[in-house]
């Protein structure tokens, strides 16, 4: 019998024999103890009696914690996007259109053709600030500072009416009532009623308007020009009548003073072309070709 056991141990330990051997040994194993169970329980009761608390650190639930942070971040980002989506208000006046729009604070904007404003719906009343591209006339309610940002300059107003023109061809702010502050490239000009600020070569220049009302007559459909380049005038015609004008070179050096209405294209072209000695031809597809009279 002794030999049997002996042989078993000398065998190569593979497969079931090994497993059985492991299990046999394990079933004979006992975890050692340093203190008796009874002793530990008595010690425990003593601690309880003395009102001792466990000093062991317990885990904060890291996983749910991290998940909740991640979840709230996602929700916040979602809200932010939704907020932006609904908050950003954009008002656009297309080609040949004019729009009158009342801002949340009660101020009124008249948008000329091909112009747009952008502002925050929710914070506008508190923080009157908007972005403008194009031309607009503002009738600003008295109140806190009113800021118009254009690509070229910032216009700051304290309850007034004014006209802002900010297009590729130029930049001009005309003050009708109240006071207006225009800032561009750290240059600041303050204008009072009857004055304008124009931008020439990136510099702001103050001018006095001879006829203040005429700068914003576009609101009633009348376009008034005081010694303006023909190119500027044709640009306005393009915007008001939704046409594209093909004009010969050199017109930017000829100047026109006068006014036209946006009701009738032929009348308008007559008003501009006849005194300037130009011919025009209206072609299908919203096209107008301008030629010099002597070219014919």
């Amino acid at each position, binding site marked *: 019998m002794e030999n049997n056991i002996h042989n078993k141990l000398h065998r190569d*330990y593979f497969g079931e024999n090994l497993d059985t051997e492991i299990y046999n040994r394990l079933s004979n194993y006992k975890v050692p103890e340093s203190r008796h169970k009874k002793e530990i329980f008595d010690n425990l009761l003593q601690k309880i009696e003395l009102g001792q608390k466990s000093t062991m650190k317990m885990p904060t639930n890291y996983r749910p914690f991290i998940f909740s942070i991640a979840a709230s971040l996602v929700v916040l980002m979602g809200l932010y996007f939704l907020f932006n989506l609904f908050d950003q208000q954009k008002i656009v006046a297309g080609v040949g259109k004019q729009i009158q729009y009342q801002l949340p604070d009660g101020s009124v904007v008249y948008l000329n053709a091909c112009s747009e404003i952008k502002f925050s719906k929710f914070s506008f009343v508190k923080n009157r600030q908007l972005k403008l591209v194009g031309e607009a006339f503002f009738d600003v309610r008295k109140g806190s500072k009113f800021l118009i940002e254009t690509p070229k300059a910032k216009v700051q107003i304290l309850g007034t009416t004014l006209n802002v023109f900010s297009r590729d061809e130029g930049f001009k702010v005309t003050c009708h009532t109240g006071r207006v502050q225009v800032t561009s490239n750290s240059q600041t000009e303050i204008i009072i009623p009857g004055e304008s600020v124009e931008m020439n070569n990136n510099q702001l220049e103050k001018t006095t308007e001879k006829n203040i009302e005429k700068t914003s007559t576009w609101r009633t459909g009348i376009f008034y020009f005081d010694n303006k380049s023909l190119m500027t005038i044709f640009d306005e015609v393009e915007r008001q009548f939704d046409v594209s004008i093909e004009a010969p070179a050199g017109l930017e050096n000829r100047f026109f003073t006068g006014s036209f209405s946006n009701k009738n294209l032929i009348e308008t072209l007559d008003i501009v072309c006849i005194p300037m000695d130009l011919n025009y031809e209206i072609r299908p597809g919203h096209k107008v070709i301008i030629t010099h009279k002597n070219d014919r």
Partner: protein
Amino acid sequence: MGIDKSEFKEIFDTWFDSLRNFIYYKTGDVQQAEDIVQETFLKVWEKRDTVCIDTVRAYLYTIANHIFINNYQQKKVVLKFINKTKDNKSVESPEFEMEMKEFDAKLQRALSELSDKNREVFLMNRIDDFTYNDIAENLGISVKAVEKRMSKALEHLRKYITGKF
């Protein structure tokens, strides 16, 4: 909900040994295991109003495990079991005695080399005689997971022992 003092004693008597063994399998340190289990029961007493006697076992294992993880540095585990039955020296030869000792040493080293997860499951089954269902309930894992860990542990032991023999 809630337990009184006699129920507390009952829970202690029922679970103390297997809890201590459970921590010992993780640490290889008897004193540490006993300290941790004592703290575990202190915690249970503190929470006695919210403890339910039917679900207390998983709770005990969780607390013991958390106390271990959060308060003790993980060291290399060196297990040293003792034999239940004193070897009857009159029956066995000295050579057999030697071989047994060698095998035990090898086995215990192999056990120490196991990953904590596999080791605790394997030993709970082989030493504490817990069924797979019991272990799953204690640790809050599935029976499938217990099966997986058991077979992994055994495979590892086989490799270790045959490789070194």
